[in-house]
């Protein structure tokens, strides 16, 4: 609506858009040659994209709703998420500039807006109800019924056939059962293009923006904040304005019933970056939070490990080259470089360092620990020597408590919200009745739960485990010294441990297997499993992902030896 020229015919300024994307005068229906180039960025809240359509479209639905498009919905979601991130301390630039631009670019590239001809094909009539053998006029398009039944396996929303049959026959250009204008179209397109917007993808957008700005939030943290409720995701549609009515197929798009998966968000982000033809991202240098040196420091603290280990992590980072700017910085579209998971990488470095110093073969680390314990008895000066056994006991206990708490929280997670969802007006009353019953039952049994009140959302915190040096019970190991496991050789401090075992001798092809290695708990030492488990808890990902990174780092570290002496078993001499 930047178009402010007067109409040639009637001199009014009252423009709308035709199907072809041309401006027409609403007063006299004079069509111009001008096409829509740039649209106001704030088109979410008040504006509506109006079209002359061949069929009838109710301008205002009876229930006070308005017409809205799916991408408007997503735009709202992104806005909310950005605001939440801002509240968490992210710079406002993210919301106002970066994310906004990314989104605009996306809309343009996917031809949903900001272009000459919006890709809004008129929705053909889809008669679904009477006969299940009805097929669309376009045989390539999957039928609506098929789409509906697809999501059952994911434990998705109610999609039984009775719903399908309640979808009314429609005239030519109105959408098939959704509150939004193009809900069904959106789902149809899903089959062909891989970058149709989804809820998990909103997080990919956020992460991409955070990465661009090099904000100190890792992807695992972002996802944790989502689960903890600090960033809108589950039931975000609650915040849609009243007149944006959500029903029918919109639910499939906007209602999530599972937590976002790290891999999925991560991979989508990279696809997105390539799709948007973004240039090389800002450099990740060694002063960035996301650099392994920095992240290792954070994770060492959180894992209650001695600060002295940081020297070792830096050494490993340097030796393997994973601290190099070119390795760490994202080049969208570059298929040859491995995509970096900063958080997992840093955790893996720590694991490798632990293996270097303690071997972690369920034997040596305990011997070393006893040795350190002995030396600690006569150790009067300086800090105590680090004893693996003590550390293990302290951390395991805390970890077990936290894990148990987390498991319970997961079981008590509430997925539904106040705003009821229904597919059609027909099952609205049933849904409302059910909701009422659920609320009644929650009240009744809530009272019987005793004094346990549902804990308020925990304050967002970057650290899940914290250890204080002020505790006199010796449960904080930050200040402990590694002298117990090191020795001097030629003026240098080296590990007493002369051995190392590789997690895997040969790396798999990630593109074929999906993983670099295949982790099975029974095949590896318990101590190794414990350490993986610790970081798995902190990052909320499967241990196998950390294992993959460990393998990758090991192969970089022992690169020369591996190629030279292929006949060796897994034990190598450093």
């Amino acid at each position, binding site marked *: 609506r930047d178009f402010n020229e007067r109409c040639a015919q009637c001199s009014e300024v009252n423009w709308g858009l035709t199907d072809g994307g041309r401006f027409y005068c609403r007063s006299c229906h004079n069509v111009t040659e001008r096409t829509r180039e740039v649209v106001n960025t704030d088109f979410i809240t008040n504006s509506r994209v109006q079209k002359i359509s061949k069929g009838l479209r109710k301008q205002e639905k009876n229930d006070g709703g308005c017409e809205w498009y799916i991408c408007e919905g997503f735009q709202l979601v992104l806005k909310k998420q950005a605001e939440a991130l801002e509240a968490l301390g992210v710079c406002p630039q993210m919301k106002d500039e970066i994310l906004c631009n990314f989104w605009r670019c996306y809309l343009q590239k996917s031809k949903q807006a900001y272009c000459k001809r919006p890709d809004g094909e008129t929705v053909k009539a889809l008669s679904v109800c009477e006969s299940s053998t009805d097929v669309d006029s376009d045989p390539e398009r999957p039928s609506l019924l098929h789409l509906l039944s697809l999501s059952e396996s*994911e*434990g998705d*929303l*109610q*999609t*039984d056939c009775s719903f399908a049959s309640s979808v009314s026959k429609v005239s030519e250009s109105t959408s098939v059962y959704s509150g939004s204008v193009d809900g069904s179209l959106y789902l149809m397109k899903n089959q062909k293009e891989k970058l149709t917007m989804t809820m998990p993808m909103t997080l990919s957008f956020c992460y991409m923006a955070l990465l661009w700005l090099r904000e100190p939030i890792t992807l695992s943290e972002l996802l944790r904040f989502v689960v903890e409720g600090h960033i809108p995701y589950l039931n975000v549609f609650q915040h849609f304005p009243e007149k944006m009515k959500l029903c029918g197929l919109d639910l499939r798009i906007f209602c999530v*019933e*599972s*937590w976002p*998966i*790290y891999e999925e968000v991560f991979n989508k982000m990279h696809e997105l970056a390539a799709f948007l033809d973004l240039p090389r991202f800002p450099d990740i240098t060694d002063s960035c939070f996301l650099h392994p040196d920095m992240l290792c420091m954070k994770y060492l603290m959180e894992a209650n490990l001695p600060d002295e280990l940081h020297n070792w992590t830096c050494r490993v980072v340097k030796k393997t080259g994973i601290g190099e700017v070119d390795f760490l910085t994202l080049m969208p579209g570059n298929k040859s470089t491995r995509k970096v998971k900063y958080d997992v990488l840093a955790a893996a470095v720590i694991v490798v360092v632990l293996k270097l110093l303690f071997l972690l073969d369920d034997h040596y680390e305990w011997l070393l620990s006893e040795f350190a314990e002995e030396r600690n008895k006569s150790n009067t000066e300086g800090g105590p020597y680090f004893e693996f056994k003590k550390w293990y006991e302290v951390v395991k206990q805390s970890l077990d408590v936290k*894990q148990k708490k987390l*498991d*319970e929280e*997961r*079981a*008590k*997670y*509430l*997925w*539904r919200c106040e705003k009821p969802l229904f597919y059609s007006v027909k099952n609205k009353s049933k*849904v409302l009745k*059910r*909701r009422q*019953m*659920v609320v*009644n*039952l*929650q009240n*009744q*049994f*809530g*009272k*019987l*739960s*005793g004094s*346990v009140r549902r804990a308020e959302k925990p304050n967002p915190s970057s650290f899940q485990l914290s250890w204080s040096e002020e505790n006199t019970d010796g449960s904080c190991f930050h200040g402990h010294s590694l002298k117990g496991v090191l020795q001097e050789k030629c003026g240098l401090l080296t590990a007493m441990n002369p051995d190392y075992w590789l997690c895997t001798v040969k790396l798999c092809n990630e593109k074929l297997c999906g993983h670099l290695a295949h982790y099975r708990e029974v095949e590896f030492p318990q101590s190794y499993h414990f350490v993986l*488990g610790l970081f*798995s*808890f902190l990052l*909320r*990902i*499967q241990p196998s992902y950390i294992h993959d990174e460990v393998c990758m780092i090991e192969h970089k570290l022992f690169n020369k030896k591996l190629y030279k002496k292929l006949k060796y078993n897994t034990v190598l001499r450093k």
Partner: protein
Amino acid sequence: SSHEHKLNFRKSKEACLSYIQDALLQKQWKRAAEFLTCYVESLEKDYSREHVGPSEMIWRIGTEILWHHSQSSMKEFNCFMEQMKTLGVKRYLKVCLEHVFHLLCNGQIDEAYQNLSLAESWRFGEQTAIQDKEMKLIEAYRGLLDYYSWSKQKNILLENGEDGFSDLAVEQEMHSYFRKAAVNLKEIIKIPGVWDVFVKCYVDLLEFYGDHNEARQVLNEYAYNSKFPANPNAHVYLYQFLKRQGESKKSLISALKILHDIVPSHELMIDFNTMLQKSKKRKKRRLGLEVIFAALDYAGWKENAKAWSCLARQVKQIVISEKHLDWIKQEWNSRKDWWPAFHFSRYLAKRNWQENKSLSYEKALVAGILLGKDCKYFKYVSHQGCKAQLKRFRMLKKFVNRHNPVYLRISG
């Protein structure tokens, strides 16, 4: 736990259910309630493919919690049950029935009756036909409560009857309860099943009103119709009825025969053996011996003096008559390897002597015959008995000594 990081609605609720289950098993009602509060939102999701859906889960779990939780009242319980009735039409009658059971357990007979009447009048299209079985049960239980009312009226009448006055109103009420009860009870016992309580009540009614034929028929059906599941109680009820009717020993014996086959350790075996022992027919006496030996195979009878006295009496009688020693031999054959340790150990001898002299007397007699005068049990008990200068023990010792050759013939 696998610390699964992928979590969705379904898995989250599965986990929730397992926490509820643990809490229930450990009787932690508050904790169970806590988790159930989180589980109930499952109702808003479609689980039509699952075998047991959330509405059934919530009904069953909620019932348990409300029944046992200290802060829960009957009012809350009833309110909850009413809600559950609306949740699943396919389960409506079942929920009604279980609600009635709880009311009965709580002594609220009148409320239970009201609920049953209400349920009886429920109609819901084809569901009514599908839930036919539950409906029959509901009618049967209402019949039972009618019986209970009848019984109360009857007692009132009997008490007042001593005054010479018979209250007509009470009598009429009593009869009307009888009619109502009889109709429903009769219906349910037609269907193959285990209906002990219904049968007993119905027979009671019939007997009171003098319809013994019908009663006999009902009991015979219940006991002998092969469509009905094998039920020892059916035979017990029949036996008791026949006894009340003063039937011949022959029919009593035939009633108990099947009971012996099904439950050799039944307490009526003593009566059975007693009848059989006295019989003139050799076959019956033989059966009696079998019956009493079989009963004493069971640990629950080890210290039953009456049973031992039955066995002792019969064994003694056989030994004295010197006829049918082979019966004892046959019975003893399969038992001689384990009865000595089971019944006749030295430890048991001491204990029995200390605790129950009559028991030890009877057992000693049997032991002496079966195992000879030199067996541990007999030696100890008879010695103790003689030391205590109890006459019968001296007699016992003489008897066994005299008949020791019998033992040799038995064991050989």
